[in-house]
């Protein structure tokens, strides 16, 4: 007889499962967290290497000469920007045409659902200017993009200057096999969104193979930072990061990721904690689901894109604009050799440093260990539901009684939780006008405070639901509800982790203990407190503080709270402007799931 069909053996297994359930869950949780922390340990990571054959062994001597002229162009751009009070469209068009590019402009306007206080805009109107350098001998089937944002004030002038300088240099070469699109976008991401979505056939070039966004605000730099995280935590192909790293080493420019320098002492505690910090920064940025550079919106369309930022700090060794130009020239010549889209290297990875990476095969088991806890709990509940309670004397009638309240007492909390979720998703935007009339707050604050209000109101639900429901909840009832909730959470977290591992993992870290240990029989006050601490909103609050700590810019509680409110408003705006999925996921799916556990805690 097989292992599972032999009743003796089955009983033995099941008793093992129920006896050891809690210890196994705790061990799995510890193992999952330990595995995740171990990912940053250098012997467990792999060195990055170039996977694409076409970009591998080709090497050129970069010859870009015109750094100084690029800076002068940048200064002209800044002057015209001040005079025009925004994007100097005519000057840009004239300059690009003088360099021999085919110039197009694109006007766009967008009304945000509520004013954005961070960037102080509500009705956004702007123009994007892009010039296409046609490949001299190739058909117009493929393109590369180099973009620089036009930001108000004194920033990014050098970026636009370098972009124009490179355009002039590239125009004089005959070895381009792809069109190169030089884009200057206004209002950063909103402009980029307009450019990508509204103009037909991707900005009138051929299909875009790669895109780089450049941010440079000083005449000299000390290091270059690479930003990879895009919308919804999507990352470009690792080959793009490998390309950047290879050129940094070749040209001798200091390169960083997450703003952190590389260290060689992986066996010391401080070296290891440095890697952990870098990796946690990447995890936080990926989990937030927002695009962290202008490149973030390209990734949805299978266009590998990254942002390169020039940083000027207090180091002694400075790199001038000519060297940066040479680095970009080298990268574009290698991208020129591509025959297909970048697809040879990994699309899902974490980088504890610029030269090491962890692929999905290595980091997924950490999440798997956490998900196993949910499955163990579900099995335990299934077993408890299947075996009749030992206290019944009159076996038959009691069994009938315990099975009947099943469906209704489970369905009601489910429906009400999801309705609350829908309310959390729709009400803040809908009722911001009413809130502004009633209370002396601005629209943004109104939206955020309504969201928090709806969230807290959901906490009062269990008492109200039970008053509505006739009949009392039963032992079997909460078990069935918990089984459904645990499986629902497992599926939800699993799907989230597949798309955005960081978000799934962070939610799992806080929600899995909640799911595992909540029952109506634990001490109410203490567990209510713990449940609120581990709810998605508080996780977000702690993440905000943690993120600031990782960046070595710790904030006080006041500033942290204000930052938290702005993070919520940014999340809502990201969803309505660019289609970020974090806010609907949390409001419509994760929050109702958490409410189900809250219901179970207060089950009577």
């Amino acid at each position, binding site marked *: 007889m097989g292992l599972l069909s032999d009743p003796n053996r089955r009983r033995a297994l099941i008793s093992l499962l129920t006896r050891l359930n809690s210890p196994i869950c705790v061990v799995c949780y510890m193992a999952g967290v330990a595995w995740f922390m171990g990912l940053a340990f250098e012997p467990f990571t792999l060195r990055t290497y170039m996977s694409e*054959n*076409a970009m*591998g*062994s*080709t*090497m*050129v*001597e970069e010859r870009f000469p015109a750094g100084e002229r690029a800076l002068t162009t940048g200064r002209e751009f800044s002057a015209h920007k001040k005079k025009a009070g925004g994007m100097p469209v005519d000057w840009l068009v004239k300059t690009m045409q003088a360099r021999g590019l085919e110039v197009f402009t694109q006007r766009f306007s967008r009304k945000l659902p509520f004013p954005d206080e961070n960037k102080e805009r509500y009705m956004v109107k702007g123009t994007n200017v892009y010039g296409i350098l046609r*490949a*001299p*001998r*190739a058909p117009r089937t493929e393109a590369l993009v180099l973009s620089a944002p036009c930001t108000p004030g004194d920033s990014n002038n050098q970026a636009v200057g370098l972009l124009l300088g490179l355009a002039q240099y590239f125009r004089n*070469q*005959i*070895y*381009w*096999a792809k069109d190169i699109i030089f884009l200057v976008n206004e209002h950063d991401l909103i402009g980029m969104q307009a450019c990508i979505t509204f103009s037909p056939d991707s900005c009138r070039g051929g299909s875009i193979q790669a895109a780089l966004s450049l941010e440079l605000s000083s005449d000299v730099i000390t290091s270059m930072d690479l930003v990879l995280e895009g919308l919804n935590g999507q990352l470009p192909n690792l080959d793009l990061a490998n390309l950047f790293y290879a050129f940094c080493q070749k040209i001798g420019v200091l390169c960083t990721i997450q703003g952190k320098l590389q260290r060689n002492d992986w066996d010391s505690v401080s070296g290891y904690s440095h890697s952990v910090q870098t990796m946690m920064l990447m995890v936080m940025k990926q989990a937030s689901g927002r695009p962290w550079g202008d490149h973030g919106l390209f990734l949805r369309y299978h266009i590998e894109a990254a942002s390169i930022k020039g940083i000027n700090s207090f180091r002694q060794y400075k790199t001038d604009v000519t060297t940066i130009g040479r680095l970009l020239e080298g990268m574009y*010549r290698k991208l*020129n*050799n591509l*025959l297909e889209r970048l697809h040879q290297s990994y699309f899902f990875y974490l980088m504890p440093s610029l030269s090491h990476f962890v692929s999905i095969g290595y980091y997924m088991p950490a999440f798997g260990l956490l998900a196993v806890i949910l499955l163990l709990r579900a099995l335990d509940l299934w077993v408890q539901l299947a075996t009749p309670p030992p206290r019944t004397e009159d076996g038959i009638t009691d069994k009938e009684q315990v099975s009947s309240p099943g469906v209704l007492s489970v369905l009601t909390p489910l429906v009400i939780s999801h309705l609350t979720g829908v309310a959390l998703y729709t009400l803040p935007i809908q009722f911001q006008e009413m809130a502004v009339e009633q209370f002396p707050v601005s629209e943004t604050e109104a939206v955020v405070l309504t969201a928090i209000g709806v969230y807290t109101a959901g906490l009062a639900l269990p008492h109200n639901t039970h008053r509505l429901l006739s009949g009392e909840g039963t032992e079997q009832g909460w078990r069935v509800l918990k089984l459904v909730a645990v499986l629902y959470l497992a599926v939800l977290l699993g799907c989230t982790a597949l798309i955005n591992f960081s978000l799934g993992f962070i939610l799992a870290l806080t929600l899995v203990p909640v799911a595992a240990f909540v029952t109506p029989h634990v001490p109410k006050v203490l567990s209510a407190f713990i449940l609120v601490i581990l709810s998605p909103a508080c996780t977000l609050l702690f993440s905000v503080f943690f993120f600031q700590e990782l960046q070595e810019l710790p904030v006080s509680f006041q500033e942290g709270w204000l930052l938290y409110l702005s993070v919520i408003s940014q999340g809502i705006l990201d969803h309505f402007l660019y289609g970020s999925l974090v806010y609907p996921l949390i409001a419509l799916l994760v929050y109702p799931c958490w409410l189900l556990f809250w219901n179970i805690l207060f089950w009577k």
Partner: protein
Amino acid sequence: IFFFYSIHLLHTADNAGQFFSSGHTNNWAVLVCTSRFWFNYRHVANTLSVYRSVKRLGIPDSHIVLMLADDMACNHRNPKPATVFSHKNMELNVYGDDVEVDYRGYEVTVENFLRVLTGRLPPSTPRSKRLLSDDRSNILIYLTGHGGNGFLKFQDSEEISNVELADAFEQMWQKRRYNELLFIIDTCQGASMYERFYSPNLMALASSQVGEDSLSHQPDLAIGVHLMDRYTFYLLEFLEDIHPASKTNMNDLFKVCPKSQCVSTPGHRTDLFLRDPGSVLITDFFGSVRKVEITMETINLTDPIKQVEQRKYSYVDQLPVSEIIHQKPKQKDWHPPDGFILGLWTLILLVFFKLYGMKHLKHIF
């Protein structure tokens, strides 16, 4: 019927003896580059360097079948269009202005290559795409590209194996399409491609042994790719010193690119070749030498021409191959005899059941 003639001379002029020693009357060359894509620039440059040498030494375009799988000279990424360089700093443009490519681009396939060798082409094929050799032709075959143990990759999608190649040469031998054949291959593990040859009068050279990679020579920093492979680079240097009247022989060719320069170990195979390699001139294969010698002396051929060999051969067995060739015994891995393995497993099963009893038998079946 195939006769050997031996001519007795009254003079002590060895020149006359050597004059008719090679036995060929025309030369052909089949030069194949099997890789495409810009980063395989060096394979096209390899083939074009050999083409250049062969043309310079006298073989005309009508006797050269040049197969190039991709067009590097007019590739959009070439900063010097219409050129293919073999030395860095652009010293030598092997593309020139009189290159005639017979099979280009996607026409370079295994099928076309084998059809060219065996002569089985459709009637509409133009003469420039045919190998119109006869039984007195010396043929040079040069292959380059990416290869492995026993195969050569064509165009990123198919392969030719060493067995196919050996069979194609046997077909050529049986159809009397060559007198002598020199086979040169510059790929990784190139020596595996000539391991299976079994037809007579084949001499083979390869740039690396089995298990070794053939390395590329030098990158050009303006063009951005490796320009040549090492073996062919040194081969080209060697051939640049050869002129139509050179007396250099094959033993010098075997010394081209020793391990110190090539990193891989070049190999050669001469056991199927009837003549001594030391007496084979380079120009027998690389050049097209008209054998003309002007003499003012009279030669008296007093003795009648005698048939030296009396044996008559059937069409197929023109040369008793098995008598000539000593094949290397195939290295087979030693396996224990089958009966032994069966007995061993029976013993293990019996011991198991004895120890644990027969009741476990039902669990297995």
